[in-house]
């Protein structure tokens, strides 16, 4: 998993983004094939955010994400096999198949989901940070959410608590301009989201979410400030969702031209081009990278397919705990 020490190599940033892209392309395939069911929200186009931010986190830090969290889970270091097995509903999945695509959890990497209620993860992130502040632990909780959540009361209550109590939360607002079919301008009277954060006295920085290196830099500076005890920081990560909101979305609300324009800013070819120009990447190494990733994904699929169904007799497990908490 990403360490906190040296700045991550650009090659690694490229690999991580590509892993997510290829993984989700496979997910879409498997959804059509019926191996994955329920809701499936793809992150395609937004990979630079999860990858960039995760570089700044240490294993002790915590992550709270939404239902669009495959990328965050992978970038946080959760193995692709158990993630895919989860989407298959197999008990080898990260959440034993109980959660599915929207509810990836992993206690080992302090990955707290996978929350499918818009805004619902923010108070939980505030609480994780509160625990750290009470225990004097120099940890950061990174909380990811879409710009649509900014209209929810829970966003505001959470920002206020985090600022009022100077809690170590890194708020990562993934502004992809749409909440399902609702454009930001139709959901916020003030579309500059940093202004909202500022109204709580929270440092707020807009970041080009299509530039993974910019994201990584901003995240590094932000987590540093948060870790020092400066209170929460708000990052507005400007990005775009290349694909439909979910597999059911007819995309009536935006035109193909807009999508095409944004695809020109795809963070992956962009970084790849920069690396080529810097002589740090060539066709061979890229092909090599693709091969390695393809292999990783193939074995993830194999792992998921080989997975087993939890016996129905276990249905009532995990409603209440079977053991005392740590």
């Amino acid at each position, binding site marked *: 998993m990403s360490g906190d020490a040296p700045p991550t190599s650009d090659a690694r940033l490229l690999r991580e983004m590509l892993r997510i892209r290829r993984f989700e392309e496979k997910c879409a395939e498997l959804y059509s094939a019926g191996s994955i069911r329920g809701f499936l929200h793809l992150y395609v186009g937004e990979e630079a955010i999860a990858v960039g931010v995760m570089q700044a986190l240490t294993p002790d830090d915590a992550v709270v994400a939404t239902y669009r969290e495959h990328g965050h889970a992978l970038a946080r270091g959760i193995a692709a096999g158990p993630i895919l097995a989860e989407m298959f509903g197999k008990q080898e999945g990260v959440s034993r*198949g109980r*959660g599915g695509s929207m509810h990836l959890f992993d206690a080992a990497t302090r990955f707290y989901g996978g929350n499918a209620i818009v805004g619902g993860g923010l108070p939980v992130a505030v609480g994780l940070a509160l625990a750290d502040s009470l225990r004097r632990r120099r940890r950061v909780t990174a909380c990811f959410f879409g710009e649509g959540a900014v209209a929810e009361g829970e966003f505001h209550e959470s920002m206020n608590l985090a600022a009022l109590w100077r809690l170590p939360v890194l708020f990562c607002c993934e502004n992809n301009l749409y909440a399902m079919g609702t454009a930001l301008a139709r959901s916020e009277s003030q579309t500059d989201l940093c202004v909202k954060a500022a109204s709580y006295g929270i440092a707020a920085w807009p970041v080009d979410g299509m530039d993974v290196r910019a994201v990584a830099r901003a995240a590094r500076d932000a987590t540093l400030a948060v870790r020092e005890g400066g209170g929460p920081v708000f990052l507005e990560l400007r990005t775009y969702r290349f694909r439909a909101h979910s597999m059911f979305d007819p995309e009536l609300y935006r035109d193909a031209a807009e999508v095409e324009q944004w695809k020109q800013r795809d963070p992956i070819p962009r970084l790849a081009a920069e690396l080529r120009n810097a002589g740090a990447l060539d066709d061979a190494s890229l092909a090599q990278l693709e091969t390695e990733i393809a292999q990783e994904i193939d074995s993830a699929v194999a792992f998921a397919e080989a997975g087993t169904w939890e016996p129905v007799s276990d249905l*009532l497990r995990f409603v209440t705990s079977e053991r005392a908490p740590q």
Partner: protein
Amino acid sequence: MSARKLTYREALREAHREALLRDERVFLMGEDVGRYGGSYAVSKGLLAEFGPERIRDAPLSESAFVGAGIGAALGGMRPIVEIMTVNFSLLALDQILNNAATLLHMSGGQLSVPLVIRMATGAGRQLAAQHSHSLEGWYAHIPGLRVLAPASVADARGMLWTALEDPDPVLLFEHAALYALEGELPEDAGAVEIERAALRRAGRDLSIVTYGGSLPKALAAAEVLAAEGVLAEVLDLRSLRPLDETAILGSVARTHRALIVDEGWRSGSLSAEIAARIQERAFFELDAPVSRLCSAEVPIPYARHLEQAALPQCESIVAAARALVGAHG
């Protein structure tokens, strides 16, 4: 009068069109009802026909736009507020319980709240614990609300207008599994009454009392049972608050055995209220204890086999019915 086939979804859309055309005070407000076309495509096309003022996309602010629906109703409008699904309605519960349901009373009868709140409900599509609630029976606990559960294309077509004519708040629960349900409707199908339960199938040996998404399962079970010579009545409650106690007791008086099928979690579900009332009012009519088939008391799991096992199914209804007719008083 010629008939035509349409889906539950289309029937709802037609009901919205009719209401919007008939009464200029009517408007639809909710998340993605406009440009997106409605998360279940119920309002698809309405934005083009009625414009953004009356087909109003709302930000993700359940509490505020439900409260705004209450205020607009007080202001003389006839709002239809769509909460995308019941799972998100918890964020608006304060407005529903502390304002919509109480304003008439707190004001000593001065202020009525003619508001209709629609939401999709129910499990069965592998949406996991946060997106699979069946809380309509839970809402039926609240005085001051009328709670409806259309389970047929005719009710999807006809309940909305009647609900809009109600001076008080009405909650309309549409089971997500029903949107694709097809049915025949007369050309002139329109408003339906919302007070009475409907006997969907007559029988003799037991009464299956159910509503919403469980109705098709109960009817399928009744078919299977009939083949075995067990004749089950199937009563569709339609209204969860108030309950049509007369219809329920009438059916029990005929069959002397009752099985309640309810997708809600068993403890504290609507099925408990119905069972309690039957034994209160028809204790000596009963040849066996009132039986309940509900969802398992577990957050709904994602995995298909577990989710299916957690919910009432045709097979489990058949099994429960067999056990009930086997039980002797």
